[in-house]
């Protein structure tokens, strides 16, 4: 797993170099973050799962409080309240909830008889919806989605009955128009509409998607070569070092590069699921499985958005996109996975 992560982050730095117009300070910052993130990962890998288990309710509670604080006194960045200024670092509590929510659900469900009964499901739903809605209020649709997904995966892996699952899914689908009407911001609605027909507004909202598709499409099978992507090197592609970095990759390395990169991701995800199935207790299992699947959601949403099959939501390409907090969060989750992996034999005695 470590090998896979190292390969991925190395590839990420390479693409970032190209996307950032060869800016070394940018690269340096990212490298420092990576280093930090790896340290966090190794640190967490040392903490045994039962320790995590004990901390879980507290972490979740603190996270919720912080989310509330953000809503009340948060910094506004890019039109949304996401940041909490801790004087030393700016910190996004919502990032923390990406880990805390699945932990909390795993903690809760591991104590109940599985598959979960009706009461457990209600409690679980509350535990998931509380942070999700708080984050969606910020508003940060991408993170809210990821938090909700992480929570959902725990419930799914805990063995929720198919009938219940399909029933709630249908109910949720019925909820979508309401969501559309009352809970989404104009810009979020616009994003969805734009995704459905980007050409309707080629210079406005559709610009990102059109340019991104052009970048990927013009890459062809073998790509234009590292540092040779015209779309990305000539500034046509917006946000190319952050959310749209996959378009740079697609343009410069083409279909072949994409296959290799996605395989690498697939390896990490499957490895995570493998660790989950071989974990020794419910908490570890549920947590590991959820974290792995959340990682997949990151990937799928980002690549789907960049290639124009999903709306533009602010989800970075995990471990590759430029940016600090999500990197640390992701690495922390891998740290937990490693811890679960290394502690299973210990516990099986």
């Amino acid at each position, binding site marked *: 797993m470590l090998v896979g992560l190292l390969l991925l982050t190395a590839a990420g730095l390479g693409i970032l170099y190209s996307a950032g117009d060869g800016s070394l300070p940018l690269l340096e910052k990212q490298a420092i973050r990576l280093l930090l993130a790896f340290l966090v990962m190794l640190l967490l890998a040392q903490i045994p799962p039962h320790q995590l288990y004990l901390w879980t309710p507290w972490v979740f509670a603190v996270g919720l409080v912080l989310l509330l604080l953000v809503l009340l006194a948060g910094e506004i960045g890019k039109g949304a309240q996401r940041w909490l200024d801790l004087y030393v670092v700016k910190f996004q509590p919502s990032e923390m909830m990406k880990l805390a929510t699945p932990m909390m659900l795993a903690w809760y469900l591991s104590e109940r008889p599985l598959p979960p009964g009706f009461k457990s499901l209600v409690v679980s739903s509350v535990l998931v919806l509380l942070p999700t809605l708080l984050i969606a209020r910020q508003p940060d649709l991408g993170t809210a989605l990821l938090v909700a997904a992480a929570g959902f995966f725990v419930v799914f*892996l805990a063995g929720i009955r198919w009938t219940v699952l399909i029933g709630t899914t249908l109910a949720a689908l019925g909820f979508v128009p309401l969501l559309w009407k009352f809970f989404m911001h104009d810009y979020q609605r616009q994003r969805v509409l734009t995704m459905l027909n980007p050409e309707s507004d080629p210079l406005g909202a559709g610009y990102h998607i059109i340019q991104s598709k052009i970048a990927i499409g013009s890459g062809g099978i073998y790509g234009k070569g590292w540092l040779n992507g*015209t779309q990305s090197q000539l500034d046509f592609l917006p946000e190319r070092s952050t959310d749209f970095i996959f378009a740079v990759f697609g343009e410069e390395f083409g279909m072949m590069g994409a296959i290799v990169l996605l395989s690498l991701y697939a390896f990490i995800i499957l490895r995570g699921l493998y660790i989950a199935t071989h974990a020794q207790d419910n908490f570890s299992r549920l947590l590991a499985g959820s974290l792995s699947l959340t990682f997949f959601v990151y990937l799928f949403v980002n690549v789907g958005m960049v290639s124009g099959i999903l709306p533009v939501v602010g989800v970075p390409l995990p471990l590759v996109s430029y940016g600090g907090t999500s990197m640390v969060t992701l690495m922390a989750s891998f740290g937990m996975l490693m811890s679960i992996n290394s502690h299973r034999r210990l516990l099986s005695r």
Partner: protein
Amino acid sequence: MSYRTLVTDHSYHARQFRSRAVFAGFLCLLLLIALLVRLGYLQIIENTHFSDLSENNRIRLMALPPNRGLIYDRNGVVLAENQPTFHLELIPEQVPDMDTTLAALGKIVRLSEEDLKRFRLALRNRRPFDSVSLRSRLDDEEVARLAANRHRFPGMDIAARLSRNYPHGKDVVHAVGYVGRINEKELETIDVGNYRGTNYIGKTGLEKYYEDDLHGIVGQQNVEVNAEGRVLRAIDTVPPVPGNDLVLSLDLELQQIADAALGDLAGAVVAMVPQTGEVLVFVSKPTYDPNLFVDGISHTDYDALSHGDYKPLFNRALYGQYPPGSTLKPFIGLGALDDRVIGAHEDIYCNGYYLLPGDDTERKYRDWKKEGHRHTDMNKAIEESCDVYFYEVSRRMGIDRIHDFLNKFGFGRRTGIDLLGERSGLLPSSEWKKRVHRKVWYPGETLISGIGQGYMLTTPLQLVNAVSVLASRGVVHQPHLVREIRNNQGEYSEIIKPEQTTFKLNNENNWNLVQQAMRDVLHGTWGTARLTGYGLKYKMAGKTGTAQVFGIAQDEEYDQETVAKKLRDHGLFIAFAPYDNPQIAVAVVAENGEHGSAVAPIARKIIDHYLKVDGPASKATSVRRKRTSN
């Protein structure tokens, strides 16, 4: 329940979990494959489409406008050049907020109401992503300020352009003309492709007449641009072909001398070389600065020029139609001699007026000299400008023979000079009167036509052209301002040699008789311009003339204060020199200049300079008023 009991428990749960995990894993793989299929669709199937789009994004075809040809005088002095100037342009698509941008730019450079008005108008008529000019001719300081603030204004560009500049604008504008911004009417007539990137087009004068030569051929360049439209590098280039240079026959120095000699008088001076038809001087006064027109003239400036006294924009040399007055007499005299209606030394007695034979009204056709010239032959009639003599010979010739003879000298038709809009003047005939006025020609009208009044109208250009024919004994040229069209490598590509035709008189000696009489105008004892001829180191031949102020094409409401001056007669003078070997022919028309003898010194100054003779100043000056003649 402790943690330990939970973990050791429930193999059922482990199995349940495994099946879910495997299911999830498969789903993940499936979705990943879906992503790959999507990517494959974009990158393989739609690859050509997106590659094209990417190229279109990246490559922009830019027009490389050719440099306009320069215009030189006959001695190589530049009359029209291209000066690098800086212009402020905006690409509206890249400007986030036009109003605030304009307001902010207005604090950095001077933006007039008219600039803004023109800009907003141009905004509406343009192609997407074309840049629109906001201010032209920025000064150095403005360029520096804009460059320093460039980052604040996305979509702003400081474009370096070549602008037309006329270093001697005022002196030559009526010949050279000027360029201006292409207007919509012109867009319909030009090859728009060849004018991509070009802002200017010849509006008047040679700039217009030789537009095709001066403009050149547009070049093209494929350039790589970034998302902001900034050009990063050129990919391939088809260089433009610069326009050809014009070398004029005009002599700037002579032009300036003529201009100065006319002083404050409105009028025209044209001089040409009789042997070649080359125009040496082409002055119309008052004049104006063509540089005002290049980037669009302001309304105030334009009003001043178009409604001001004497209308500076009016090209008198080309459009001004004046009665030739007595300057017509040598031509009438020559016609009479050649038609043998009168002998060279035949006397006509002038007692101050003329009675038309057979006219019962006893109307007196007066001579300008009340007491009459007494015995008058051809030489004396021209030298002293006797009207009665010419009444008689005109009567003998009749209007139609006068018409036919004068026609040979180019009266009544366009000379064909290389300028547009030339007027043809008017050379009447009985047929013409019947056609236009539906009336018969009266014999009395023949008399006044014989002294260059009545219907007769000529332009200054026609006059000099006729003098030139007289000086060269029947050689007719198309007068022309451009001597050479040179291509940009400096190879001579074309030397203009206009057609030349020659006509012969029945008796070639008649040329001598008339030329001698014209010599005596300056050098004879009683010559009307003898004061100008005084002290000349060469022999000049000429003829004075006076035109009454009426029938001028451009007269209109007069300013009260200028009425008196404006009602004065126009003074005319035609000349060629040296008398025995003519090298230059000149025609001067000075509006309200009173009499030809008063404007003769103007011609002398030009000829003195052209023949490189600096004689003592003649006794007459244009300021001194002489008695008027008819």
